[in-house]
Structure formats: structure tokens, C-alpha cells
């Protein structure tokens, strides 16, 4: 007898080494090799464990020889396997051709879904990699201030002007550039337009890599020179060869400048988050604001900091603290709590939350919604594929049976079907990418002001996305059918006894899930459309149809226009305003019982509120003929009353601009900004005519267009240097309307796509089931079943599925969309019923039509033909 060795927990060789041995060793050699290794190990163990372990590992490594290594199957059966792959592909292809309709349905469905996913990927990828084309992008940061205002904290990209001087002296900083935006009128010869400007330090062009196509890159060092973009050059001069040309610009009445074009900028590339039309040297800006430029409390432009390549951002913290101290001393009401250096690459993604950012922005909600849409559509397409693939097994039972009989194991069959699926998905990926390239991305670009180029940020990203996505879709859609097929018993299949497909609960729940997803997306999309409809019809709180607005440069213009329209039959009333509803408002703090509140302040003229049809709730409106109204009387909105907690507002008082104000009237709440922002407390007070910046005119009924024409011709006489500034009050929320129209288009597109996808999947599924049940239906018909009865038989199941899918899908869609809507709009949108009604009717209609389209097959065909076959 051999001595029995202790087999405790401690006397085992290192697990990883043992595993490694088991992994590489040829199975037929494993027993003796592992046995020898163990024997030596246990012998060594009697001396010292470490030594035994070490020797075991050493032996395992020494055993790692070519002769002992397990050869992969591919090497072992290399010829057979490549032949098999070829055979799989050929039989897959033949099958595809034979069942061309369902295969086409699969490929088209997957292609559409993949196309949308690719588009979303390109959008998101480009959005989250904006601005990375600047060579020093990693060393650039934007100064972002967290400002406390009342109870809230907000982020601002604007900083006081002198900040740059502090930062420039820091040893870690290479350059600092300030930049700010403004709008001004440009005049070249007879052409007069409003353009967007960027004021910038000369360093701006050194920090960023925007390309100059002609002229001097250092143009901004000269106060009297500007840089224009190609688009601007073409707009005013017809070509881009404009260096040395003059351009007159009017920033305001007091600030008119004659500039020479010193350089032409390449049109802003699509991967830049900052759009630049015209660059003006910062000293011009300083000159325009010279009395307050060094005020620490004034937040002016963005500060871009370029650090030295090796320096750390933390080296700036003491300077930033000092800046914070200066600023807080200068303006205690809105102290900066924190100064953040936001890396350039993150600016675009964060801009939705930063006021005054020069980058265009997109809220995370919309970015997440896009991903959600792509995911849902992809899932629908995958379920489609699964359903059709499982149903289509019917035609391949014999093939599977024979493959099994002649030695194909489960693994081989799973491999075969997965491979087929992978190649199908690869085709769909190619088609989908083409679809995205030629149709979807250009379509998206047309709808929105931003331009997305079809491209990826890096090839690694592209590999990761396309490879990962292909694999995901292939496995998601192909795994179940392949395993399902592989589990068939060869004997049953060949004897024709295997039951499959339609009757199974799984297949039905798959279809239900697919329909539920479709309904989810349809309900969600329709709810979004219902919400924008709601806003379209929403009462603005005043009557806006017949009101015209003229934006004035100065109050003389007000008088001039007034004298010309006084006798006009087209205009029934006029009023002036310093701030105008829907166009501009002023934010100010008022003091009531020692507490400060942030409110919107509108300085308006006599009769303005009457003209705008603002509805009076209590008290009276402002009246110029009452002397006290000019100084201290105000009218507030309901929100204001609610915030103060007043029961009876009229007669109450508060302090605004260090004057005690008395409330004489309360008006109903109204929308002064677009619907994305909540209504805040509003104060109206009388403004002097010399401060008027807007003239508001009420057209006589039915004379709106005539009035506009008349005003335009008057404007030409009054201000020949200015572009027309006459607009309809109804267009006040134009941006909002344009935005929601574009969004609606996307939603309609998504809803239609998901219906089409569901319809295609259903069509494929039913056409298979129909072939299978053709005999049954024929027999029924022979025995006298009516066409209608057969139709009922066919559609009964599917209608139940639609109802179940609705019960699951509709609340899910509603819930999702409610979250998105709540993040977009402050207003609670009343629930509309029609999205649900439309969704279920659409789905039912779709099912009915799909069945009907296949129904002809049964009615046309003579039952004898179907029954005689075989």
C-alpha cells in the first residue's frame, strides 16, 4: 500500500498553473502529463510548499511544447472547416434566393434600423467630439463661473474683462484670449444686413486653428481690420477675394466703424462648436465699453486659456481665487461661488447648461432620446428577424435533419445559422450605412441649422461601433433561431413529426414584444406631436394676430414713424416700449419685506398693455395722464402675486431700482419667452419715450399685410442704412416653432418607420404560417367555410396580440415621453387621448392590411390545387 497523502486545502498546486496546463495540453496527453506533474509536486511538498509550487509552475511551463499543445480545430480540420463554411454560405444564399420575399423583408428591415442607428451614432459621435481638431485642444479651457443668484446657482461662460490680465501673468499660462458675441448691421454699398459678430483678442487666432484662406492671420492686431468668413465674403462681394475691401459696421447709434477686410476665414468646419461669421478686434469692444470695461462686476466675454503643454490646471487656482475675491467685492448680489476651467473638448457637451456660451448646444435629453429611438427600432428589427427566421425553419427541416444525420452536431448547426445570420447582418450594415450616408444624415442636416458631416472621430471609434454593433445585432437576432433549430431531433424532423413555430408561446410572446415596442414608439412619438400641437394652440395670454413690431435704433425713429402712420387707415393703434413681450426682457431684483426676488421688468409706454390685449385681473392698467403712474405705479402678473403671497395685490408696495413701487393692477400670466422656460414674476412700469426701443402697432382688422407693406416703405425712408426691422408679433416664438416642427418631422419619421418595420415582420411571419396552413384553409373551404370565416381564423390570434401589445407598450411609451417632455417644458401638458387611439388603430389597420394582402393567395387559389400537391 502506498502511503495516503494529506489532501488538505493547502496541498494543491497553484490553480492557475494547473488550469493553464489543462487549457493548452492535448487531451490525450493530459492525464499522464498532469499525473507526472502532480506526482512530483506531492513529493516536493514533503519538503517545502514554495519549492513545490515553484517546481510545479516550472514543469508546466516546460511541458508547454509544440508536441503537447492542443491544436485548434481549425488547424486540425482546416480543409474540412473552410469547405464547410463555403457550403454553409452557399446553402444560406440559395435559401435566401428561394425565400426571396422574407429574406428581403429581413434585410430591408434590418437595414432601415441599422441606418438609423448609424445616423444616430454619427450625430452623437460628432457632437461629443466637437472642437478636437484644434492642435492644442487638450491645453485649452474655458473659464466657467458658477454664479449664485438668489436661491439658485447657474453657470456662465462670461467673465469680467480684467480677468485675462491676471491669468496672462501666470507662469503656467501660455496665452489667454477673450471673445464675445454681438449682432450689428453691416453695410457694403447698397447691401444692408444684420450679421453675427465675434469680438476677439489677437490671441484668439493663435489659440485656435481656424484656417485663414487669404490675407493675414494676425489681422486682429489691427483695430481697423476685420476677418470675414467665406460665406460673408460671397454674400457681400460675390467672391472670396476680398482682402482690402471696405465694410461699414454699425454696432449702435454711437458706434459706427469703417473697417478694412484683413483676412478671409474658411467657413466654420462642421466639427467646430463655435460658428464665426465676422471677427472684430477686441480693442473696438473695449472702446465701445470704455467707461465700464474694468468693472469686476460686469460679466462680458468668454475667456479661453491656453496652458503650457507640461503645466497643470491646478497652477491657476490661486489666481482664480483672487479673481473670485475681486468679483465678489464688486458685486455682492451675484457672487461667483466657484470658477471652473472647462476643457475645450467638453464645452459643447456642457453648453446647454452654461449661459452665454459661444458654442452651440444640445440638451442631454434630446441626445438620450435619439439613442433610445435607435435602440427601439433596432430591437424591433431584431425581433422581426427572429420571428421570420423561426417561422422559416419550416422550409429547411429536411436540410437540418440530414445535416444532423451525416454528423453535424448541435455546435455545427448553431454555427451554420449564426454565420448565415452574420452575413445577412453584414449586408444590412452596408445597406444601412449607405442609407445613412445618402438619405438620413443629409435629411437631418436639412431640418436643423447645424451641419453634420458623415464621418467618425477616429477609426478606433468606427471599428468599435461597427464591429460591436454588427456582432450585437447578429447575436441578438440570430441566437434564438440558431439554438432553436439545433435542438431538433433528427429522427422526428425527417419523419415529419417535429412540431414547431407558430403554436409556441415563445414565438407569440416575441411577436407581442415586437408589437409592444412598435406601439411604445408610436405612442411616444404621437405624444410628442400632441405636445407641440398643444403649444401651437396654447393661449399666449394676449392677442398676437394683428400686431406688428418695429425694432428701433433710437427714439427719434419712433416719432418719425408715428407722424407718418398717424393718418394711416391700416393701423388702428400704436404704442412704444423699452422692453417688448416676446422680443426682450430685463431681469431685475426687487425687495419686499427685506427679501430679494428676481423678476422680469418691462418698461412700456402709454396704452401698450391695452394694445397688446394683456388681460386685466384686478385694479387698473397704467395711465400716463396720472402723474404718480410715471414714477411709482406698477402692474404685475399673477405669478408675482403668488410669489409674494398676497391676497389682495392692489395697493401693495415693494422696492425696485431704489424706488418704492405701488401695485395698481394685476394681469393674467402670459408667455413672454418661448415655452421652454417657465413664466416668472413680471413687473410693468411706464417708460419714457426717449428710451423706447420698440414700436408696437395694431393693424386694422384684415389689414395686417397692407400695414406691414406700408411700414416697410416708411422704414426705408426713416432708416435707409438699416435692414428692415418690421416683424409680426405672431413670429415672436419663431425659433420655438421651427424647432418643434423639425422635431415633429423626426417623430413622424420614427413612428412611420416603426409601423413599417412591424408590418414587414408580420408579413414575413404570416406568409410562412399561411403556407403551412394552406391545406387546412383549403379543406375548410371545401367544407363550406366562407371567405370571411377564414379571414377571421387567420387574424384572430394577431388581433389579440395587438391588444396585449397595446396594454404593455402604450403605458411604457407614455411614461418615457412624459419624462422627456418634463425635462423639455416647464408646463404640465394635459394628457391627450388621440395618440393612444391613433396608435392602436394604426396597428390594427396594419395587421388587417397585411393579412388582407396575403389573403388573395387563399381566395384566388382553387382548393383542389393546394390539396392535390404531393
Amino acid at each position, binding site marked *: 500500500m*502506498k502511503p*495516503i*497523502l494529506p489532501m488538505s486545502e493547502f496541498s494543491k498546486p497553484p490553480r492557475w498553473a494547473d488550469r493553464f496546463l489543462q487549457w493548452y495540453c492535448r487531451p490525450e496527453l493530459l*492525464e*499522464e*502529463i*498532469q*499525473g*507526472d*506533474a*502532480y*506526482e*512530483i509536486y*506531492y*513529493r516536493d511538498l514533503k519538503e517545502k510548499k514554495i519549492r513545490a509550487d515553484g517546481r510545479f509552475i*516550472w*514543469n508546466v511551463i*516546460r*511541458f508547454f*511544447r509544440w*508536441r*503537447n499543445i492542443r491544436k485548434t480545430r481549425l488547424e486540425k480540420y482546416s480543409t474540412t472547416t473552410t469547405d464547410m463554411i463555403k457550403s454553409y454560405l452557399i446553402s444560406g444564399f440559395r435559401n435566401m434566393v428561394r425565400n426571396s420575399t422574407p429574406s428581403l423583408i429581413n434585410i430591408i428591415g434590418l437595414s432601415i434600423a441599422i441606418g438609423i442607428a448609424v445616423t444616430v451614432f454619427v450625430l452623437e459621435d460628432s457632437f461629443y467630439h466637437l472642437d478636437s481638431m484644434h492642435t492644442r485642444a487638450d491645453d485649452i479651457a474655458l473659464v466657467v463661473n458658477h454664479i449664485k443668484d438668489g436661491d439658485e446657482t447657474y453657470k456662465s461662460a462670461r467673465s469680467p474683462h480684467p480677468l485675462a490680465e491676471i491669468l496672462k501673468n501666470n507662469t503656467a499660462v501660455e496665452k489667454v484670449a477673450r471673445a464675445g458675441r454681438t449682432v450689428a448691421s453691416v453695410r457694403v454699398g447698397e447691401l444692408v444686413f444684420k450679421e453675427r459678430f465675434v469680438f476677439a483678442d489677437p490671441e484668439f487666432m493663435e489659440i485656435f486653428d481656424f484656417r485663414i484662406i487669404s490675407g493675414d492671420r494676425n489681422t486682429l492686431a489691427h483695430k481697423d481690420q476685420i476677418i470675414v468668413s467665406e460665406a460673408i465674403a460671397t454674400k457681400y462681394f460675390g467672391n472670396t477675394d476680398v482682402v482690402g475691401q471696405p465694410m461699414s459696421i454699425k454696432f449702435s447709434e454711437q458706434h459706427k466703424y469703417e473697417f478694412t477686410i484683413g483676412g478671409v476665414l474658411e467657413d466654420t468646419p462642421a466639427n467646430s462648436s463655435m460658428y464665426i461669421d465676422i471677427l472684430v478686434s477686441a480693442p473696438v469692444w473695449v472702446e465701445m465699453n470704455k467707461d465700464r470695461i474694468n468693472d469686476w462686476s460686469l460679466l462680458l466675454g468668454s475667456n479661453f486659456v491656453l496652458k503650457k503643454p507640461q503645466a497643470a490646471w491646478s497652477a491657476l487656482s490661486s489666481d482664480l481665487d483672487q479673481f473670485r475675491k475681486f468679483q465678489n467685492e464688486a458685486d455682492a448680489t451675484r457672487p461667483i461661488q466657484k470658477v471652473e476651467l472647462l476643457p475645450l473638448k467638453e464645452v459643447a457637451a456642457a453648453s446647454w447648461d452654461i449661459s452665454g456660451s459661444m458654442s452651440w448646444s444640445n440638451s442631454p435629453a434630446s441626445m438620450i432620446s435619439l439613442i433610445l429611438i435607435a435602440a427601439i427600432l433596432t430591437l424591433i428589427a431584431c425581433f422581426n428577424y427572429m420571428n421570420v427566421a423561426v417561422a422559416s425553419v419550416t422550409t429547411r427541416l429536411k436540410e437540418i435533419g440530414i445535416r444532423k444525420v451525416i454528423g453535424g452536431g448541435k455546435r455545427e448547426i448553431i454555427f451554420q445559422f449564426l454565420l448565415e445570420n452574420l452575413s445577412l447582418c453584414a449586408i444590412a450594415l452596408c445597406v444601412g450605412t449607405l442609407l445613412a450616408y445618402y438619405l438620413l444624415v443629409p435629411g437631418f442636416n436639412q431640418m436643423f441649422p447645424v451641419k453634420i458631416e458623415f464621418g467618425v472621430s477616429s477609426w478606433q471609434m468606427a471599428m468599435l461601433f461597427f464591429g460591436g454593433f454588427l456582432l450585437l445585432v447578429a447575436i441578438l437576432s440570430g441566437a434564438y433561431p440558431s439554438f432553436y433549430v439545433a435542438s431538433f431531433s433528427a429522427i422526428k424532423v425527417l419523419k415529419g413529426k417535429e412540431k414547431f413555430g407558430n403554436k409556441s408561446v415563445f414565438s407569440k410572446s416575441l411577436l407581442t414584444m415586437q408589437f409592444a415596442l412598435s406601439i411604445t414608439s408610436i405612442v411616444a412619438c404621437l405624444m410628442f406631436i400632441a405636445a407641440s400641437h398643444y403649444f401651437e394652440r396654447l393661449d399666449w395670454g394676449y392677442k398676437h394676430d394683428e400686431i406688428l413690431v418695429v425694432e428701433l435704433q433710437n427714439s427719434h425713429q419712433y416719432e418719425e414713424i408715428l407722424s407718418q402712420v398717424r393718418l394711416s387707415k391700416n393701423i388702428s393703434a400704436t404704442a412704444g416700449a423699452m422692453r417688448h413681450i416676446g422680443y426682450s426682457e430685463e431681469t431685475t431684483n426687487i425687495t419686499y419685506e427685506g427679501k430679494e426676488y428676481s423678476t422680469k421688468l418691462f418698461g412700456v409706454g402709454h396704452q401698450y398693455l391695452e394694445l397688446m390685449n394683456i388681460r386685466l385681473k384686478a385694479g387698473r392698467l397704467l395711465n400716463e395722464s396720472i402723474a404718480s403712474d410715471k414714477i411709482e405705479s406698477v402692474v404685475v402678473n399673477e405669478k408675482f402675486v403668488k410669489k409674494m403671497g398676497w391676497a389682495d395685490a392692489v395697493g401693495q408696495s415693494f422696492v425696485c431700482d431704489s424706488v418704492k413701487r405701488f401695485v395698481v393692477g394685476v394681469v393674467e400670466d402670459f408667455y413672454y419667452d418661448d415655452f421652454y422656460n417657465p413664466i416668472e414674476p413680471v413687473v410693468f412700469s411706464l417708460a419714457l419715450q426717449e428710451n423706447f426701443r420698440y414700436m408696437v402697432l395694431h393693424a386694422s382688422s384684415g389689414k395686417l399685410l397692407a400695414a406691414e407693406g406700408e411700414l416697410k416703405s416708411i422704414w426705408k425712408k426713416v432708416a435707409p442704412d438699416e435692414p428692415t426691422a418690421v416683424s409680426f408679433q405672431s413670429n415672436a416664438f419663431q425659433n420655438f416653432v421651427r424647432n418643434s416642427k423639425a422635431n415633429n418631422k423626426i417623430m413622424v419619421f420614427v413612428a412611420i418607420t416603426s409601423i413599417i418595420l412591424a408590418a414587414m415582420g408580420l408579413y414575413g411571419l404570416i406568409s410562412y404560417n399561411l403556407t403551412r396552413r394552406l391545406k387546412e384553409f383549403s379543406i375548410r373551404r371545401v367544407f363550406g367555410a366562407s371567405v370571411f370565416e377564414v379571414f377571421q381564423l387567420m387574424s384572430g390570434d394577431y388581433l389579440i396580440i395587438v391588444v396585449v401589445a397595446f396594454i404593455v407598450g402604450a403605458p411604457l411609451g407614455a411614461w418615457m415621453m412624459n419624462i422627456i417632455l418634463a425635462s423639455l417644458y416647464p408646463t404640465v401638458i394635459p394628457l391627450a387621448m388621440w395618440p393612444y387611439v391613433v396608435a392602436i388603430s394604426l396597428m390594427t389597420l396594419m395587421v388587417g392590411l397585411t393579412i388582407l394582402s396575403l389573403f388573395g393567395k387563399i381566395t384566388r387559389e382553387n382548393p383542389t390545387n393546394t390539396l392535390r400537391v404531393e
Partner: protein
Amino acid sequence: MKGNYLGELEELVLLHVGILHPDAYGVAVMDEIEKQAGRSLNISAVHSVLTRLEEKGFLKSKMGDPSQERGGRRKRIFLLTAAGKRALEEANELRTQLFNQIPKVALQFRLA
């Protein structure tokens, strides 16, 4: 490896398989070589020689009984084949024959 040439290590291993008959397996051969010839070999080297010899037809093998110290695994017992025995004899013969041809002087010189 052309023909039935027997390498030095192969000959050594083959000899020990004969010595250990009928209990020759990897570890035993390795131990015996260390004991008799004083050469310390790695188990993997012994293994590859054994398999090579089996491929050449000098050895045949069968699986033995499982044992506790091997974690319940079986040994592969190697046995000399007729060809193996002949190869040993031939090598031995060749060696003696050659040895006998060495002039005495050379040997004496060596002894001196």
C-alpha cells in the same frame, strides 16, 4: 530523424525503461536516471524522449492504474518492444566492437 538512429539521451532513456521493467513511466525514469547516471533531467524532457521513442517503435505504452499521489490519474507505462531491444543490443555491440578496436597503447597512455 532519419532511420532508427538512437541518440545518446534516447539510448539512456531506453536503457532505463528496460531496467525499470515493468514499471517504467515518466517520473520513475527521471528518478532512475538521476540515481544511476547522476543526470538531472526535467520531466518534460524525459516525456518528449519517451514519446519520440514510441513513435520510432522502440517503445510501446499502456495506461496503468490510477494512484493517489497523482491526484487519481493513471500512469503511462512504457515497455520495450522487440525493435527497442534490438536497437539497444546493436548499440551495445557497436560500442564494444569499437571499444575493442582502440589500441592498447592509447588505453595505457590514458592509464599512465
